[in-house]
């Protein structure tokens, strides 16, 4: 048993001794090493070790949650007692039933890479220098910001119902933001790569892509205010998908603050949209065998041909609803209480390439990146299409400036008329492009 698990279990025992009806404890010990690039120059390196634990205790359903930035048995016991005292101060919650029982799952392979965890700052300096050179090879006036780094660590979870899990993980990545300024005409763009094992990380080409795309953003212009079709590129789909899945979290649904309340089992999107969650992909960025309460995660379709198949539950919302937990308890770290979250999302690709989808549009917008995230409560969205191009006669032409979208989650999802066959793939994630047949945009044109 790991030392962290010993500490977590000591916290659980202390909370039970103090009178908790149910409790769990989470410990983590992580290290991050990073190098930062500013104005095309290396200028900063950091190594950050973060240790801490949290204890969640329930008394008559009321929840107390205590955290401390220490990893000792003594701190665990003190936090446990504090959590129980806080739970007694909370109102009883008759909707709380219990914490989940332990479940069995095979560990997901390759979430920790020894080689990656052994990288030192010198390696990231080299990656960053390569990035600066790449961007400047594209444009010698490129200004490069960004950086590279690695994080690795161990965590442990124990509960009064017998959950006892510890795991290790690592991930490394690099990202670059490139600015090309030609007088008052400014083009910017960013690119990144991240992986859990060295074999999946592509160090070369990240900054080059950012620089090439920044040049493409030069000469941006407004477009006419109109209803037009949109093609959302892979990164632009992330905000939409993420916010829709966020609205499917059972907590918001049960509390009547989600626009997807009452929609489980109903069609919420065009039938071309199928979205799967694949939590067990080896070396997947968001892979894990268990959720944040120790419930085994399961691959499943979340949206199947447009139908919302399930709400996402942690143990509280599941038992409140009289269903089994779905393995979606989310825990952001020792400082965060337990919420709801998903693992790897994969949108099922369609029949035609992104280029073919664009070629079928006479007048429209290609969105390379924007945070098109409908409010989880209202389902409405009004925001800027930050990086994109006008589509004219089947081709991307000029980059767009000051162009906003006004819509709703319902409209965007039901108007998806095609998903591209080609896609961006990150470890565990599949991100094709989406075409939305008609959306209101506003601009100065």
């Amino acid at each position: 048993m790991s030392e962290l698990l010993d500490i977590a279990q000591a916290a659980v025992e202390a909370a039970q001794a103090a009178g908790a009806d149910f409790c769990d404890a989470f410990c983590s010990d992580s290290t991050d090493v990073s190098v930062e690039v500013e104005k095309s120059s290396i200028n900063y390196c950091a190594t950050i070790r973060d240790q801490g634990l949290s204890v969640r205790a329930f008394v008559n359903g009321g929840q107390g949650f205590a955290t401390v930035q220490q990893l000792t048995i003594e701190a665990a016991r003190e936090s446990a007692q504090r959590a129980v005292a806080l739970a007694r101060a909370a109102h009883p919650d008759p909707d709380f039933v219990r914490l989940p029982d332990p479940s069995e799952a095979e560990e997901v392979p390759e979430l920790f890479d020894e080689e990656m965890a052994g990288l030192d700052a010198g390696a990231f300096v080299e990656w960053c220098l390569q990035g600066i050179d790449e961007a400047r090879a594209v444009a010698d006036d490129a200004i490069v910001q960004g950086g590279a780094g690695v994080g690795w660590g161990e965590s442990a979870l124990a509960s009064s119902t017998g959950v006892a899990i510890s795991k290790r993980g690592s991930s490394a990545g690099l990202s670059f933001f490139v600015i090309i300024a030609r007088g008052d005409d400014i083009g910017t763009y960013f690119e990144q790569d991240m992986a859990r094992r060295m074999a999946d990380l592509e160090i070369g080409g990240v900054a080059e892509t950012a620089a090439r795309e920044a040049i493409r953003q030069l000469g941006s212009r407004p477009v006419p205010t109109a209803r037009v079709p949109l093609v959302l590129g892979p990164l632009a789909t992330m905000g939409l998908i993420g916010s829709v899945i966020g609205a499917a979290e059972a907590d918001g649904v049960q509390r009547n603050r989600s626009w997807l309340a009452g929609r489980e089992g109903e069609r919420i999107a065009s039938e071309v949209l199928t979205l799967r969650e694949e939590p067990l992909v080896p070396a997947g960025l968001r892979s894990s065998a268990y959720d944040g309460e120790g419930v085994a995660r399961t691959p499943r379709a979340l949206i199947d041909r447009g139908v919302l198949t399930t709400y996402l539950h942690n143990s509280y919302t599941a038992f409140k609803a009289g269903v089994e937990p779905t393995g979606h308890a989310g825990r952001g770290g020792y400082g965060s209480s337990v919420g709801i979250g998903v693992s790897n999302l994969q949108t099922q690709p369609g029949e035609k390439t992104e280029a073919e989808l664009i070629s079928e549009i006479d007048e429209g917008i290609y969105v390379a990146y924007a945070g098109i995230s409908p409010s989880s409560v209202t389902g409405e969205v009004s925001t800027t299409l930050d990086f994109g191009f006008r589509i004219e006669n089947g081709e991307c032409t000029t980059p767009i400036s000051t162009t906003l979208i006004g819509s709703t989650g319902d409209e965007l999802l039901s108007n998806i008329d095609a998903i591209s066959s080609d896609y961006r793939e990150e470890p565990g994630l599949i991100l094709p492009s989406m075409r939305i047949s008609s959306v209101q945009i506003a601009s100065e044109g």
Partner: protein
Amino acid sequence: MRDLIENILHDARRRGASFADLRVNTGESTSISVEDGQADKVSSASRSGAGLRVLVDGAWGFAPTNSITGEELRRCLDDAMSMAKAAAGHVAEPGVVAEVEPVEDTVEATAEIDPREVPLADRVQRIYEIEQVARERDDRIVNSRANYADGVGSLIIANTFGTYIEQQSMRCSVRVAATAQSGDARQIATESEARPGGYEIARAIDPDAWAGDVADRALALLDAVPAPAGTFNVIIDPRVCGLLAHEAFGHNAEADAVWAGESILAGREGQQVCSPLVTIADDPTLKGLNGSFVYDHEGVPARRHDIVREGVLIGYLHSLETAARLGVEPNGAARAEGHQSEPIVRMSNTFIDAGDATLEEMIADTKDGLLLKGGYWGYVFTARGQFTCNVENAWAIRDGKIGQHFRNASFAGLTMEMLSRVDAVGNEISFDLGGTCGKGGQGMSVDAGGPYLRIRDVVVGGQQQAGRGQ
């Protein structure tokens, strides 16, 4: 503790650091969450640690720890030196810091009621009462939440110039949210009070007026219609004005972005950058606002930062490093979220100053346009100067009169272009945007405000085709 800290800084110099600073941070916080009539989540957090930063041969190294012991601080020194040396030799533009006179001071927290002296049950009851008002306002309120947080902390700031400051802090915040539903339509409104101080902040709230207003706003939005899309003359309220000052201008005035070539204000000091009607400042010395402080996290005394005076760019917000790079005096604008983050340039209380118009005059003088009220969120790409502000409400203005109520609107534009089109500035300012600003992965307490402001030809994103004007 002081001997230990000064020994570590002395060793940093001895080992080749041209500058080093150490921040030691301890504190505790309590939070209470009430939703739909149940205060069923009560939390507390205890934090402690130190962050050590060294500048060696023009390269920065940073290493924090959660354990404030001599052994751990020496490990941090080893790590920070090793980090800096890994970067040194690859630095194209060596890091520098502006020399400042050392400061020795102790700053007490200003609060009337230490929240730790208020029984937890009383704090729970108070937040329950606030949430109850929103919940019971109308049957169409289908969800209500209130969140409370207090925090007490101590921050020691020491550096190799000889600065040694012990700064106590106390903060308190209350937030309420109400969701209203009619048919399938849901609308939400929120409000928050957040600033340095103690439990008196929660106690001073009038639940009926404060939480009741939030519920009323959510209810009113049920009757609003989707906003039009197009280009409009707009009047923005003080909250939206604060959002605009912060997002559109303030981030561009942060000198780290200026130096890095990531701000549209770089190289424009002394130039006309917006309408002569516009004066913008950032002032951490204003009392009782969410972004107020006495010393920044590099130990530089807080001072008002004049950014724009009558449309002319006056200056930027600086850290020790950016002041040295741009050859000016540091002005105390570097803060860090905690000991695990390094200080970076941050705004405090950012505002557009008052003019001489009244709201009534502005509305009466607007033939076609929109009144935008209630800033929700915003963001900016400083390098392009392109910003977005999302607002809670919009109303049509027709022939000098307020008309149809709209919901779901944002406006966006290029900072200097838009602020050059300001043609009326209200004669009263208020600060009403106390919250947290995110930058570089760090959250920071800020506030923002301003007067009513009228701007010509603003692009508004809505769901209805309207074209120009209404």
